[in-house]
């Protein structure tokens, strides 16, 4: 009996000692969760590699990779913030993080940034995520849009390719699209001049080129939605190319741009004028081998500007490991690592120095042509207001669909937009 008692006491003691030792080592190591919706396999691999490099190098701060999905990330993060379960570092789009900033969920990271990073980040990229002087996240990648075209069809139809010095304006685009649209003997369309999916995305990304802001800041800091001459001209332009020129397939109208690609590869669509720069990965991996394609310089109306949207790394305001998180972020987005991430995600980096990186300054896959877009980035009032998602979903998208389907007149569409936007902004 005595022996059993001694053994029992010894076991208890050893468990205790081990437990304390474990607890001590747990106390020393800080574990951070890094949640990202990165989806391109090459980008996921790069991120994981960088995390592994960090975990090998760093003993006290360990980072765990958590996979999110673009389709559900907003809902996931909003519920995570509400329940206090948000990951220590999260990767998301600037328009969403701005909204989280308005709700007080995310930390102003500006005081935590190193001087080197502050200077190196593109000022417009920082502006995409700044409100009232507070920076809600670290912008890492630009989301740019490009125009891709089928080289053979352009050659067949004798279309001159515009250059960076002499880019197309919107009348040039229209004329080319008309020329590229071909009709069969029975009157049906054989080939469409342009492939455009959700017209609302075109409306918002071409907005800056037309100086069409939609949202205007009043003197008392409130937002007012107005359809003025520029906005009206853009809406009318989109209506006319769809309904009068008939150069865009009605079949594509509810699709996302990337869903038009099969038609682009088949030659049923001659060009796609508003598609994410990341789409090049899909073309390289999925297009037929002999498919010849190119990238056109950014279109120009009053300006060549593009709606600047960035991908951002954020830190929850409730986090207790902000400084540790920032240490890791500084490593993740150092000059070379950020270039690696951008290259593997087929996007451009927001650090000026990374943009000059050798792997990106190449003509392969039109990297250099695409980098042109980065020079024309500008922050729209719509993105800056934090109302972007709601105005697009509730106002611009449904009413544009009504207009394009001739359910309402242009005048009625403008009235509806203003009324509906007023309803959104008042709440």
């Amino acid at each position: 009996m005595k022996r059993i008692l001694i053994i029992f006491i010894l076991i208890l003691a050893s468990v205790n000692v081990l437990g304390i030792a474990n607890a001590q080592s747990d106390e020393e190591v800080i574990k951070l969760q890094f949640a990202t919706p990165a989806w391109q396999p090459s980008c996921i691999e790069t991120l994981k590699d960088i995390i592994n490099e960090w975990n090998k190098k760093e003993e006290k701060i360990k980072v765990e990779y958590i996979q999110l999905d673009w389709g559900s990330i907003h809902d996931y993060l909003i519920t995570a913030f509400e329940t206090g379960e948000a990951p220590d570092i999260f990767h998301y789009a600037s328009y969403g993080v701005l909204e989280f900033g308005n709700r007080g969920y995310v930390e102003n990271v500006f005081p935590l940034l190193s001087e080197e990073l502050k200077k190196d980040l593109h000022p417009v990229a920082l502006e995409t995520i700044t409100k009232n002087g507070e920076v809600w996240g670290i912008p890492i990648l630009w989301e740019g849009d490009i125009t891709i075209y089928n080289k053979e069809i352009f050659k067949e139809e004798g279309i001159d390719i515009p250059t960076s010095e002499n880019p197309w304006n919107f009348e040039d685009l229209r004329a080319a699209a008309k020329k590229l649209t071909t009709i069969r003997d029975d009157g049906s369309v054989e080939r469409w001049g342009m492939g455009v999916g959700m017209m609302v995305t075109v409306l918002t990304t071409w907005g800056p080129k037309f100086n069409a802001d939609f949202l205007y800041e009043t003197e008392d800091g409130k937002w007012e939605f107005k359809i003025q001459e520029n906005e009206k001209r853009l809406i009318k332009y989109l209506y006319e190319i769809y309904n009068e020129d008939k150069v865009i397939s009605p079949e594509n109208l509810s699709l996302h741009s990337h869903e038009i690609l099969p038609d682009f590869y088949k030659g049923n669509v001659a060009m796609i004028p508003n598609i994410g720069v990341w789409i090049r990965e899909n073309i390289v991996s999925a297009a037929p081998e002999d498919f010849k394609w190119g990238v056109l310089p950014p279109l120009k109306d009053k300006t060549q500007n593009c709606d600047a949207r960035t991908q951002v790394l954020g830190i929850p305001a409730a986090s207790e490991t902000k400084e540790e998180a920032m240490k890791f972020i500084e490593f993740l987005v150092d000059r070379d690592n950020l270039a690696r991430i951008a290259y593997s995600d087929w996007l451009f980096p927001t650090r000026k120095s990374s943009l000059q990186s050798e792997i990106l300054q190449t003509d392969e896959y039109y990297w250099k042509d695409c980098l042109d877009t980065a020079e024309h980035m500008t922050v729209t009032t719509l993105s800056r207001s934090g109302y972007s998602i709601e105005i697009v979903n509730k106002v611009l998208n449904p009413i544009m669909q009504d207009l394009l389907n001739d359910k309402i007149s242009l005048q009625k569409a403008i009235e509806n937009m203003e009324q509906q936007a007023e309803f959104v902004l008042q709440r």
Partner: protein
Amino acid sequence: MKITKFLKTKGILLTTRNKEFYFLLIPSCIIILLFSFYPLLRGVYLGFTNYKFGVNKELIFTGLDNFFILFKDRLFLQSLGVTVKWVFFNVFFLYIAGFFIALLLNVDIKFKEIFRCLTLVPWVIAPVVRGLMWRFFYNPSYGVINVILKNMGIIDNNINWLGSYEYALPAAIFVNVWSTTPFVAVALLAGLQTIDLQLYEASSIDGANIFQKFIYITLPQLKVISITIIILLSIWTINAFDIVYVLTGGGPGGTTNLPMLLAYNEAFKYGRPGYAAAIGNFVLLFVIFGLGFSYLISKNRKEKL
């Protein structure tokens, strides 16, 4: 004393025996109260508040304010019209299709068990997967539906099923009918099998033909289960949003916008759970009203019988 005895026999006051009975009910009552009743009441209450997601947001009781906004909300008003069409056509086609399949499955054929299992397949698939699958089928340029219809010579040009004002709602209804029909079929099949075969035999002796048997025996015998199914289907379809969310996202131009889709977006996209709860309350009221109405109808009929 007499009163106590009376109450005990009526089951109002506990006897020693049914004290144990109530004791055994406690665990399930706690679970129902905690996980079903409390969230429901809380949800109803939130509909009367200004609850918004965010740090240090105060929860203020705002009375009927949300409902006043609701009736100014163009998207919500539009969604009510969509709901009427959505519920009516879904329930109608689900019942007809379910009945038809139940009758087929009730026939004595070889491998009928296998057929019965196969019928369940669409119902077993997760709703979002069904939605994504059908999004591919409906794709205007490479979707299988356009290809089949073109090969059969029914259409000349591809149709943008989910993007056109005419076809988006019917296309979504079709997917919902396709996926929920198995439930209706199995429930009606169970009902069909409870019908006493002697009734059919007796009617055969009386010279009834197959249609007369169907109208005078099968239909009346399935009345109770049919009412239950129709009530359940109405509740489910009014609350369904997953398929529409994946297929059309409410578009084009709001032609497939359902109130529950709006509620989801209000809560999780725009961070206004209070307003979303108000939409939920409105739908709840709608369902309670519908249920009460159908209950009264069935009660009246029973009394007449």
